[in-house]
């Protein structure tokens, strides 16, 4: 009798809870970064996400989507991990590139492979490969690209014109790059010091990406800096640096028009290209963007920086979360807004290649600028995803200092890089 009574009470409680839950509207929480990940100034940083939420709530009347505003990029990683530690993480959230490795490895992110396979409205082929790869770890897709920023080469057209050098094609190579740099690096006013330079800010890491080489393998278990393609890339960077061996090149030199080439994030380009930024910063010279030069051994051109969106593995509303994730990453409306209200690039091919996008870009670009659909889409296609594993940031710091030291040795670079590789692997193993 008692047991029967207990069963009835439990059933009643469950029923009541279900009824209560059904009566209330479902709340889906979202984690978003305030402002641009690439520090590009924007107007309303929530414009894209707000619009996405509005659309989503329209198609899902019972659902309310909430997010905490005002979490800046520098606080976002801490905020997200804190929410995880407190067990209050949002259902869907943006994942910064530096956090992805740790979160994926710790099982904090919901694997999306099954959802992608069973959902006919989405295909992995919709995305640029490098962008998609940024959200994959160990062969499992944990996140989808929300917005990307490729690296482009910023060209001082005025300087090249003065030297009678045409602006290079988009399929230019290291040789072209080096030749132009060697040609323009000289003393223009005859005071004995070199005051015009070929490039600024092109590092061995840019060369590595261009040559299809990598610093680490995908899961961070070994270092590949002593591989032939890597040595080739570092040697190129060394050669380039030797052009300006005793010179002091700064960002200011570029801003004042004394440098021909500088690698530049697409977001910066978009920020400074339109009026009035353009006038404010680079008033003395005409400039344009082209692809990064290609290395002899690789097809890739540059490293792609991607902000991802993912679902918490502990989310109680996986289906809804997946719907909203699609709204963020796979919806044409949301993704095309990246071009109007943000300075990043959509990882969706059909959006980036669409006539509207082309129109938007053209509208912002002054007269004879080359930048258009072709180079942007090519840059996206040819970009490579940075590896992401837990200790990536620290490993990268160590590698940068070690490789910099190795590059000081002119003759035995490959031997030096062997040593770097050994040291790095020791570090990675621990």
């Amino acid at each position, binding site marked *: 009798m008692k047991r029967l009574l207990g069963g009835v009470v439990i059933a009643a409680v469950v029923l009541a809870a279900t009824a209560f839950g059904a009566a209330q509207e479902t709340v889906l929480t979202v984690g978003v970064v305030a402002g641009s990940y690439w520090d590009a100034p924007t107007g309303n940083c929530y414009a894209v996400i707000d619009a996405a939420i509005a659309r989503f709530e329209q198609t899902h009347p019972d659902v309310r989507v909430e997010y905490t505003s005002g979490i800046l990029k520098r606080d976002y*990683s*801490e905020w997200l*991990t*804190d929410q*995880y*530690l*407190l*067990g*209050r993480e949002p259902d869907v959230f943006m994942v910064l590139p530096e*956090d992805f490795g*740790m*979160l994926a490895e*710790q*099982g*904090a992110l919901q694997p999306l492979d099954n959802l992608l396979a069973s959902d006919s409205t989405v295909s992995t082929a919709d995305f640029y490969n490098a962008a998609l790869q940024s959200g994959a770890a160990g062969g499992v897709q944990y996140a989808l690209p929300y917005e990307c920023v490729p690296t482009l080469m910023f060209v001082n057209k005025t300087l090249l014109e003065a030297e009678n050098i045409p602006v290079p094609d988009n399929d230019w190579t290291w040789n072209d790059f080096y030749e132009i740099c060697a040609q323009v690096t000289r003393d223009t006013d005859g005071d004995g010091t070199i005051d015009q330079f070929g490039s600024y800010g092109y590092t061995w890491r840019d060369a590595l990406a261009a040559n299809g080489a990598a610093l680490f393998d995908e899961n961070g278990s070994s270092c590949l800096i002593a591989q032939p393609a890597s040595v080739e890339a570092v040697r190129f960077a060394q050669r380039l640096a030797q052009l300006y061996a005793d010179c002091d090149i700064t960002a200011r030199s570029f801003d004042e028009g004394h440098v021909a080439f500088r690698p530049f994030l697409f977001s910066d380009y978009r920020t400074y290209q339109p009026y009035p930024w353009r006038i404010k910063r680079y008033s003395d010279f005409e400039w344009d963007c082209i692809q990064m030069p290609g290395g002899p051994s690789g097809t890739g051109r540059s490293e792609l920086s991607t902000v991802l969106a993912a679902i918490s*593995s*502990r989310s109680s509303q996986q289906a809804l979360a997946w719907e909203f994730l699609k709204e963020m990453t796979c919806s044409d409306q949301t993704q095309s807004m990246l071009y109007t209200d943000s300075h990043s690039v959509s990882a969706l091919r059909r959006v980036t290649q669409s006539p509207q996008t082309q129109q938007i870009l053209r509208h912002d670009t002054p007269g004879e600028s080359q930048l258009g659909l072709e180079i942007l889409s090519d840059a996206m296609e040819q970009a490579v995803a940075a590896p992401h594993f*837990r200790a990536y940031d620290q490993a990268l710091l160590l590698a940068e200092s070690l490789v910099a030291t190795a590059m000081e040795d002119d003759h035995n670079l490959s031997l030096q890089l062997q040593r770097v590789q050994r040291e790095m692997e020791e570090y990675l193993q621990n």
Partner: protein
Amino acid sequence: MSEGTDNRTMQTDETLTLLRQGTLLINLALCVFLGAVFVLTPLRAVQRAEGVSFLQGLSMLPAAPWSVAFAALGLLAFVAVDLAYRRGRLGNGRLAFLLEPGFALLVILALHLDYNGLLLLAVVNLVDGLHGRGRMLFLGAMTSLYLLTSLDVLQSVLGMVSVSEYLAYYEGQPRQLMQTAIGLLGALNLILFIGYMVILVGRRTEENAAIRRLNGELARANDKLSVLNGQLKEYAAESERMAETRERNRLAREIHDTLGHALTGITAGADACIQMMDISPEMARKQMELIAKTARAGMNEVRRSVRALRPDALERFRLSEALDKLCSEMQQTSHAEIRLDVQMTDMRLSQDEEDAVYRIVQESVTNAIRHGHATEIDVRLSCQERCMTIVVQDNGIGCAKIEQGFGLRHMRERLRLLGGSLRVDGHNGFRIEASIPLRWGDEI
């Protein structure tokens, strides 16, 4: 079972209860401590904005802090079930054998599989309530569970973060302290568990030994008893034979006392008659009448003796009266002067004592007349210090060397049966001194 064993069992029971409660306390302390680590460490990291570095130190995304509530609930339920089981509120208690390990498992899972000592507590709580095959099954199941939950692999398969990874977040000394505390409590729990089991097994062995010992004692007692039984049978047979002998002796005594006495009187009277016939036929006739009277009395006595083996005089008179009558009759038949001096009024003597006193006096006086040819006989009965003394002194010829005749031997025998003694002296007339300890001790 002896009282000592009972005491010991009670003591071990108390020790077991104490050990069980100690184990419970340690388990509670450890669970609370682990729960606190699992809740407070992330909170601390969040508060100090060190969430990223904390999470980077972990192998997996840890469970949300509120999941520790399951551990708390499980622990409460575990203790509640144990209490109910101990108070007999769970019917036959079988439910406890499912619920306790179940709740223990809940707690273990909620505490990231980091502490499975709770299963040991469940064993400590429940093992005493099972016997035979059930106990083996239960212990087997618990052992498998314990081994299973000890697997580190399971922890990583289930995506659980161990407490040591949490502790790695803390600085050197606090971390060491906490690790030491956890290790110490865990070890203590194990030690208490082993102690409990050892004592439990020891008690069982002791009980078995006690039962075996008691069985042995019982068998020995049985053996002894059967030996005694045989002895008793022999004794009974002996005793029967002795009773027969005694009865035969008694008969002989009775014949001697009654018939012998009468015949002595008749003989003495007849002798006197023969001498008096010539001098005074009148006197002789009187004497003859006396003889006839004595013979008749003797006849009667013999008859009664045969019928009831009981002196007629004593039947009809009290002892002093019987003695009076005896003495006057003897004086008349023998012409000796018999003086009776009874220095006591009423003696509550038992039957055999009265018989003995009467017979001793009768025999002594008869002897004095028959063998000592005495003319004066003093009979004195006195009682001092719970000892009755009978002295019969005559002025007869006495004797230098006392021959142990039938009469004397009988006297001694009677006295011996009553625990008394007999002294005789034949130098100055004849003196018999008999003493009988009075059994009832009543002062006269």
